[in-house]
Protein backbone atom coordinates (compact mmCIF):
# COMPACT_ATOMS: atom_id res chain seq x y z
CA UNK A 1 0.00 0.00 0.00
CA UNK A 2 2.82 2.40 0.92
CA UNK A 3 4.39 1.10 -2.26
CA UNK A 4 1.48 2.45 -4.34
CA UNK A 5 1.65 5.87 -2.68
CA UNK A 6 5.40 6.11 -3.15
CA UNK A 7 5.18 5.26 -6.83
CA UNK A 8 2.21 7.63 -7.24
CA UNK A 9 3.98 10.59 -5.64
CA UNK A 10 7.08 10.14 -7.79
CA UNK A 11 5.20 9.53 -11.06
CA UNK A 12 2.95 12.56 -10.53
CA UNK A 13 5.90 14.75 -9.52
CA UNK A 14 8.09 13.95 -12.51
CA UNK A 15 5.41 13.77 -15.21
CA UNK A 16 3.62 16.92 -13.97
CA UNK A 17 6.94 18.81 -13.87
CA UNK A 18 7.68 17.80 -17.45
CA UNK A 19 4.23 18.87 -18.61
CA UNK A 20 4.49 22.26 -16.91
CA UNK A 21 8.09 22.88 -17.97
CA UNK A 22 9.68 22.84 -14.51
CA UNK A 23 12.53 20.56 -15.51
CA UNK A 24 15.17 22.52 -13.54
CA UNK A 25 13.12 22.38 -10.35
CA UNK A 26 12.55 18.65 -10.49
CA UNK A 27 16.14 17.96 -11.50
CA UNK A 28 17.41 19.92 -8.49
CA UNK A 29 14.84 18.26 -6.26
CA UNK A 30 15.93 14.76 -7.20
CA UNK A 31 19.56 15.62 -6.57
CA UNK A 32 19.07 17.38 -3.22
CA UNK A 33 16.21 15.66 -1.38
CA UNK A 34 18.19 12.59 -0.34
CA UNK A 35 20.13 15.09 1.79
CA UNK A 36 16.87 16.34 3.35
CA UNK A 37 16.11 12.75 4.36
CA UNK A 38 19.53 12.28 5.91
CA UNK A 39 19.16 15.58 7.77
CA UNK A 40 15.87 14.41 9.23
CA UNK A 41 17.50 11.16 10.37
CA UNK A 42 20.36 13.10 11.96
CA UNK A 43 17.80 15.27 13.75
CA UNK A 44 15.91 12.22 15.05
CA UNK A 45 18.90 10.08 15.97
CA UNK A 46 19.93 11.74 19.25
CA UNK A 47 16.32 11.75 20.49
CA UNK A 48 15.71 8.12 19.56
CA UNK A 49 18.97 6.96 21.18
CA UNK A 50 18.31 9.05 24.30
CA UNK A 51 14.72 7.91 24.79
CA UNK A 52 15.32 4.23 24.05
CA UNK A 53 18.12 4.43 26.63
CA UNK A 54 15.93 6.09 29.28
CA UNK A 55 13.02 3.77 28.57
CA UNK A 56 15.24 0.71 28.96
CA UNK A 57 15.68 1.78 32.60
CA UNK A 58 11.89 2.03 32.95
CA UNK A 59 11.52 -1.40 31.32
CA UNK A 60 14.02 -3.08 33.67
CA UNK A 61 12.63 -1.45 36.82
CA UNK A 62 9.09 -2.55 35.95
CA UNK A 63 7.87 1.04 35.62
CA UNK A 64 6.79 0.49 32.02
CA UNK A 65 4.50 -2.32 33.19
CA UNK A 66 3.06 0.10 35.77
CA UNK A 67 2.19 2.58 32.98
CA UNK A 68 0.48 -0.21 31.07
CA UNK A 69 -1.50 -1.15 34.18
CA UNK A 70 -2.73 2.45 34.64
CA UNK A 71 -4.07 2.52 31.08
CA UNK A 72 -5.20 -1.11 31.23
CA UNK A 73 -8.98 -0.46 31.08
CA UNK A 74 -8.46 1.38 27.78
CA UNK A 75 -5.72 -0.86 26.37
CA UNK A 76 -7.57 -4.10 27.13
CA UNK A 77 -10.45 -3.00 24.90
CA UNK A 78 -8.22 -1.67 22.12
CA UNK A 79 -5.81 -4.60 22.05
CA UNK A 80 -7.77 -7.74 22.95
CA UNK A 81 -5.21 -9.91 21.13
CA UNK A 82 -2.36 -9.00 23.52
CA UNK A 83 -1.80 -10.66 26.92
CA UNK A 84 -2.17 -8.27 29.88
CA UNK A 85 1.54 -8.19 30.71
CA UNK A 86 2.84 -7.75 27.15
CA UNK A 87 5.84 -5.41 27.12
CA UNK A 88 4.49 -3.60 24.05
CA UNK A 89 1.57 -2.29 26.15
CA UNK A 90 4.00 -0.31 28.34
CA UNK A 91 5.49 1.36 25.27
CA UNK A 92 2.03 1.94 23.79
CA UNK A 93 0.93 3.59 27.05
CA UNK A 94 4.05 5.80 27.05
CA UNK A 95 3.47 6.69 23.40
CA UNK A 96 -0.14 7.71 24.05
CA UNK A 97 0.95 9.75 27.08
CA UNK A 98 3.68 11.57 25.16
CA UNK A 99 1.35 12.28 22.22
CA UNK A 100 -1.35 13.66 24.50
CA UNK A 101 1.11 16.09 26.06
CA UNK A 102 2.30 17.17 22.62
CA UNK A 103 5.77 15.67 23.10
CA UNK A 104 6.06 14.32 19.57
CA UNK A 105 9.83 13.90 19.75
CA UNK A 106 9.48 11.41 22.62
CA UNK A 107 6.37 9.75 21.20
CA UNK A 108 8.11 8.48 18.05
CA UNK A 109 10.84 6.45 19.82
CA UNK A 110 8.18 4.93 22.14
CA UNK A 111 6.06 4.05 19.13
CA UNK A 112 8.95 2.44 17.28
CA UNK A 113 9.79 0.35 20.38
CA UNK A 114 6.14 -0.70 20.68
CA UNK A 115 6.17 -1.90 17.07
CA UNK A 116 9.43 -3.81 17.67
CA UNK A 117 7.89 -5.56 20.71
CA UNK A 118 4.74 -6.43 18.73
CA UNK A 119 6.88 -7.81 15.91
CA UNK A 120 8.56 -10.28 18.33
CA UNK A 121 5.39 -12.43 18.55
CA UNK A 122 4.28 -11.91 14.97
CA UNK A 123 4.09 -15.32 13.25
CA UNK A 124 4.24 -13.76 9.77
CA UNK A 125 7.07 -11.22 9.91
CA UNK A 126 6.17 -9.42 6.67
CA UNK A 127 2.48 -8.98 7.52
CA UNK A 128 0.89 -6.49 9.93
CA UNK A 129 -0.97 -7.92 12.95
CA UNK A 130 -4.30 -6.59 14.22
CA UNK A 131 -2.64 -5.02 17.25
CA UNK A 132 -0.12 -3.22 15.02
CA UNK A 133 -2.88 -1.75 12.88
CA UNK A 134 -4.93 -0.61 15.87
CA UNK A 135 -1.84 1.03 17.36
CA UNK A 136 -1.10 2.73 14.07
CA UNK A 137 -4.63 4.07 13.72
CA UNK A 138 -4.46 5.38 17.27
CA UNK A 139 -1.18 7.08 16.41
CA UNK A 140 -2.08 8.59 13.07
CA UNK A 141 -5.26 9.96 14.61
CA UNK A 142 -2.84 12.02 16.69
CA UNK A 143 -4.46 12.08 20.13
CA UNK A 144 -3.02 15.46 21.09
CA UNK A 145 -4.41 17.26 24.14
CA UNK A 146 -1.96 20.16 24.01
CA UNK A 147 -0.84 21.08 20.47
CA UNK A 148 2.41 22.72 21.65
CA UNK A 149 3.84 23.63 18.23
CA UNK A 150 0.65 25.35 17.09
CA UNK A 151 0.37 27.31 20.33
CA UNK A 152 4.02 28.38 20.11
CA UNK A 153 3.51 29.63 16.52
CA UNK A 154 0.30 31.48 17.44
CA UNK A 155 2.19 33.14 20.28
CA UNK A 156 4.94 34.15 17.86
CA UNK A 157 2.37 35.87 15.63
CA UNK A 158 0.95 37.82 18.60
CA UNK A 159 -2.33 35.98 18.91
CA UNK A 160 -4.64 37.58 21.47
CA UNK A 161 -5.50 34.13 22.76
CA UNK A 162 -3.02 31.47 21.60
CA UNK A 163 -4.70 28.65 23.52
CA UNK A 164 -8.28 29.23 22.30
CA UNK A 165 -7.80 26.51 19.65
CA UNK A 166 -7.10 23.79 22.24
CA UNK A 167 -10.76 22.90 22.59
CA UNK A 168 -11.46 22.82 18.84
CA UNK A 169 -8.30 20.74 18.28
CA UNK A 170 -9.28 18.25 20.98
CA UNK A 171 -12.76 17.85 19.50
CA UNK A 172 -11.41 17.40 15.95
CA UNK A 173 -8.72 14.95 17.05
CA UNK A 174 -11.32 13.01 19.03
CA UNK A 175 -13.53 12.70 15.95
CA UNK A 176 -10.55 11.55 13.90
CA UNK A 177 -9.30 8.97 16.42
CA UNK A 178 -12.71 7.61 17.35
CA UNK A 179 -13.83 7.19 13.73
CA UNK A 180 -10.54 5.44 12.91
CA UNK A 181 -10.82 3.11 15.90
CA UNK A 182 -14.49 2.32 15.22
CA UNK A 183 -13.76 1.41 11.60
CA UNK A 184 -10.77 -0.67 12.75
CA UNK A 185 -12.99 -2.44 15.31
CA UNK A 186 -15.62 -3.36 12.71
CA UNK A 187 -13.03 -4.58 10.23
CA UNK A 188 -11.47 -6.78 12.93
CA UNK A 189 -14.86 -8.20 13.91
CA UNK A 190 -15.88 -8.93 10.33
CA UNK A 191 -12.63 -10.73 9.61
CA UNK A 192 -13.21 -13.00 12.57
CA UNK A 193 -16.71 -14.05 11.52
Amino acid at each position, binding site marked *: MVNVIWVGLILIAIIYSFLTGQIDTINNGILTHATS*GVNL*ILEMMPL*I*VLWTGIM*KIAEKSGLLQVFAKVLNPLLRRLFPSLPKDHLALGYIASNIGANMLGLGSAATPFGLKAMAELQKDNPKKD*TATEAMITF*LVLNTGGVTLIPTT*VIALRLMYNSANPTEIIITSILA*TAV*SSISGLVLDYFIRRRRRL
Partner: protein
Amino acid sequence: MNLISKIVIPLFVLFIIIYGVKKHVNVYDSFLEGAKEGLVLVFHITPTVIAMVFAVNIFLDSNFIDGLLGFLKPFFDLVNIPLDILPMALLRPISGTASLAIMNDIFAHFGPDSYIGRLASTLQGCTDTTIYVLALYFGSIKVVKTKYALPVGLFADLMGILAAFIITFIFFG
Protein backbone atom coordinates in the same frame (compact mmCIF):
# COMPACT_ATOMS: atom_id res chain seq x y z
CA MET B 1 0.59 25.98 30.82
CA ASN B 2 3.95 26.77 29.35
CA LEU B 3 5.64 25.86 32.61
CA ILE B 4 3.82 22.53 32.73
CA SER B 5 4.97 21.52 29.27
CA LYS B 6 8.54 22.52 30.17
CA ILE B 7 8.55 20.63 33.44
CA VAL B 8 7.07 17.35 32.17
CA ILE B 9 10.20 15.95 30.52
CA PRO B 10 12.71 16.70 33.31
CA LEU B 11 10.29 15.29 35.91
CA PHE B 12 9.66 12.19 33.79
CA VAL B 13 13.39 11.49 33.42
CA LEU B 14 13.97 12.12 37.13
CA PHE B 15 11.11 9.80 38.06
CA ILE B 16 12.38 6.95 35.83
CA ILE B 17 15.90 7.20 37.24
CA ILE B 18 14.81 7.38 40.89
CA TYR B 19 12.41 4.47 40.39
CA GLY B 20 15.22 2.49 38.70
CA VAL B 21 17.65 3.15 41.56
CA LYS B 22 15.00 2.22 44.12
CA LYS B 23 14.36 -1.10 42.34
CA HIS B 24 18.13 -1.83 42.28
CA VAL B 25 18.40 -1.71 38.50
CA ASN B 26 21.85 -0.98 37.10
CA VAL B 27 20.67 2.32 35.67
CA TYR B 28 23.72 3.28 33.64
CA ASP B 29 24.17 -0.14 32.02
CA SER B 30 20.46 -0.27 31.17
CA PHE B 31 20.69 3.12 29.51
CA LEU B 32 23.62 1.96 27.38
CA GLU B 33 21.79 -1.24 26.44
CA GLY B 34 18.70 0.73 25.38
CA ALA B 35 20.74 3.36 23.56
CA LYS B 36 22.45 0.62 21.56
CA GLU B 37 19.03 -0.73 20.55
CA GLY B 38 18.10 2.84 19.60
CA LEU B 39 21.06 3.09 17.25
CA VAL B 40 20.06 -0.15 15.52
CA LEU B 41 16.53 1.27 15.24
CA VAL B 42 17.85 4.43 13.56
CA PHE B 43 19.83 2.26 11.16
CA HIS B 44 16.65 0.31 10.29
CA ILE B 45 14.48 3.38 9.66
CA THR B 46 17.05 5.32 7.61
CA PRO B 47 16.08 3.86 4.18
CA THR B 48 12.37 4.41 4.89
CA VAL B 49 12.85 8.01 5.98
CA ILE B 50 15.04 8.85 2.98
CA ALA B 51 12.58 7.19 0.58
CA MET B 52 9.56 9.03 2.00
CA VAL B 53 11.22 12.44 2.35
CA PHE B 54 12.48 12.14 -1.21
CA ALA B 55 9.10 11.23 -2.72
CA VAL B 56 7.12 13.79 -0.69
CA ASN B 57 9.56 16.61 -1.40
CA ILE B 58 9.74 16.16 -5.17
CA PHE B 59 5.94 15.91 -5.14
CA LEU B 60 5.78 19.27 -3.33
CA ASP B 61 8.37 20.76 -5.73
CA SER B 62 6.24 19.89 -8.74
CA ASN B 63 3.45 22.26 -7.52
CA PHE B 64 0.92 19.61 -8.50
CA ILE B 65 -1.34 20.59 -5.57
CA ASP B 66 -1.51 24.20 -6.80
CA GLY B 67 -2.39 23.00 -10.29
CA LEU B 68 -5.08 20.73 -8.94
CA LEU B 69 -6.59 23.50 -6.83
CA GLY B 70 -6.63 25.94 -9.73
CA PHE B 71 -8.74 23.35 -11.52
CA LEU B 72 -11.09 22.88 -8.53
CA LYS B 73 -11.36 26.58 -7.60
CA PRO B 74 -14.78 27.33 -9.16
CA PHE B 75 -16.30 24.45 -7.20
CA PHE B 76 -14.91 25.58 -3.85
CA ASP B 77 -15.96 29.19 -4.46
CA LEU B 78 -19.45 27.81 -4.88
CA VAL B 79 -19.50 26.16 -1.42
CA ASN B 80 -17.66 29.12 0.17
CA ILE B 81 -14.54 27.37 1.51
CA PRO B 82 -11.46 29.63 1.72
CA LEU B 83 -9.12 28.33 -0.97
CA ASP B 84 -5.92 29.17 0.94
CA ILE B 85 -6.68 26.45 3.48
CA LEU B 86 -7.06 23.60 0.99
CA PRO B 87 -3.39 22.88 0.26
CA MET B 88 -2.98 22.47 4.01
CA ALA B 89 -5.91 20.07 4.33
CA LEU B 90 -4.61 18.02 1.39
CA LEU B 91 -1.03 17.91 2.62
CA ARG B 92 -1.76 17.22 6.30
CA PRO B 93 -1.67 13.38 5.92
CA ILE B 94 1.42 13.47 3.68
CA SER B 95 3.80 15.96 5.26
CA GLY B 96 3.75 17.55 8.71
CA THR B 97 6.45 20.07 7.81
CA ALA B 98 4.63 21.18 4.64
CA SER B 99 1.31 21.73 6.42
CA LEU B 100 3.11 23.55 9.24
CA ALA B 101 4.78 25.82 6.68
CA ILE B 102 1.39 26.63 5.12
CA MET B 103 -0.06 27.37 8.58
CA ASN B 104 2.88 29.71 9.13
CA ASP B 105 2.06 31.53 5.85
CA ILE B 106 -1.59 31.79 6.80
CA PHE B 107 -0.68 33.32 10.19
CA ALA B 108 1.65 35.78 8.44
CA HIS B 109 -1.01 36.82 5.88
CA PHE B 110 -4.26 36.72 7.83
CA GLY B 111 -3.11 36.62 11.47
CA PRO B 112 -3.61 33.71 13.91
CA ASP B 113 -6.89 35.17 15.22
CA SER B 114 -8.61 35.37 11.82
CA TYR B 115 -11.18 32.71 10.96
CA ILE B 116 -8.80 31.02 8.53
CA GLY B 117 -5.98 31.24 11.11
CA ARG B 118 -8.08 29.42 13.68
CA LEU B 119 -9.13 26.86 11.08
CA ALA B 120 -5.47 26.24 10.18
CA SER B 121 -4.58 25.82 13.87
CA THR B 122 -7.33 23.24 14.35
CA LEU B 123 -6.38 21.39 11.17
CA GLN B 124 -2.77 21.11 12.25
CA GLY B 125 -3.82 19.68 15.61
CA CYS B 126 -6.57 17.36 14.40
CA THR B 127 -4.48 14.52 12.97
CA ASP B 128 -0.96 13.29 12.45
CA THR B 129 1.02 12.67 9.26
CA THR B 130 -0.58 9.30 8.49
CA ILE B 131 1.43 8.26 5.45
CA TYR B 132 4.75 9.14 7.05
CA VAL B 133 3.94 7.45 10.38
CA LEU B 134 2.70 4.34 8.56
CA ALA B 135 5.81 4.09 6.37
CA LEU B 136 8.09 4.75 9.34
CA TYR B 137 6.49 2.34 11.81
CA PHE B 138 6.03 -0.55 9.40
CA GLY B 139 9.36 0.15 7.69
CA SER B 140 11.18 -0.09 11.02
CA ILE B 141 10.09 -3.73 11.48
CA LYS B 142 10.14 -4.63 7.77
CA VAL B 143 6.39 -5.29 7.51
CA VAL B 144 5.37 -4.87 3.86
CA LYS B 145 1.84 -6.29 3.93
CA THR B 146 0.01 -3.54 5.82
CA LYS B 147 -3.47 -4.97 5.10
CA TYR B 148 -6.23 -2.44 5.87
CA ALA B 149 -4.00 -0.01 7.85
CA LEU B 150 -3.74 2.74 5.21
CA PRO B 151 -7.45 3.00 4.28
CA VAL B 152 -8.42 3.15 7.96
CA GLY B 153 -5.72 5.77 8.69
CA LEU B 154 -6.82 7.92 5.77
CA PHE B 155 -10.48 7.53 6.73
CA ALA B 156 -9.59 8.84 10.21
CA ASP B 157 -7.77 11.79 8.62
CA LEU B 158 -10.71 12.60 6.39
CA MET B 159 -13.13 12.57 9.33
CA GLY B 160 -10.72 14.69 11.39
CA ILE B 161 -10.35 17.26 8.61
CA LEU B 162 -14.11 17.46 8.02
CA ALA B 163 -14.61 17.79 11.79
CA ALA B 164 -12.03 20.61 11.91
CA PHE B 165 -14.00 22.57 9.27
CA ILE B 166 -17.33 22.02 11.01
CA ILE B 167 -16.11 22.59 14.59
CA THR B 168 -14.22 25.78 13.71
CA PHE B 169 -17.35 27.04 11.99
CA ILE B 170 -19.48 26.29 15.07
CA PHE B 171 -17.03 27.88 17.54
CA PHE B 172 -15.73 30.85 15.59
CA GLY B 173 -17.89 31.15 12.46
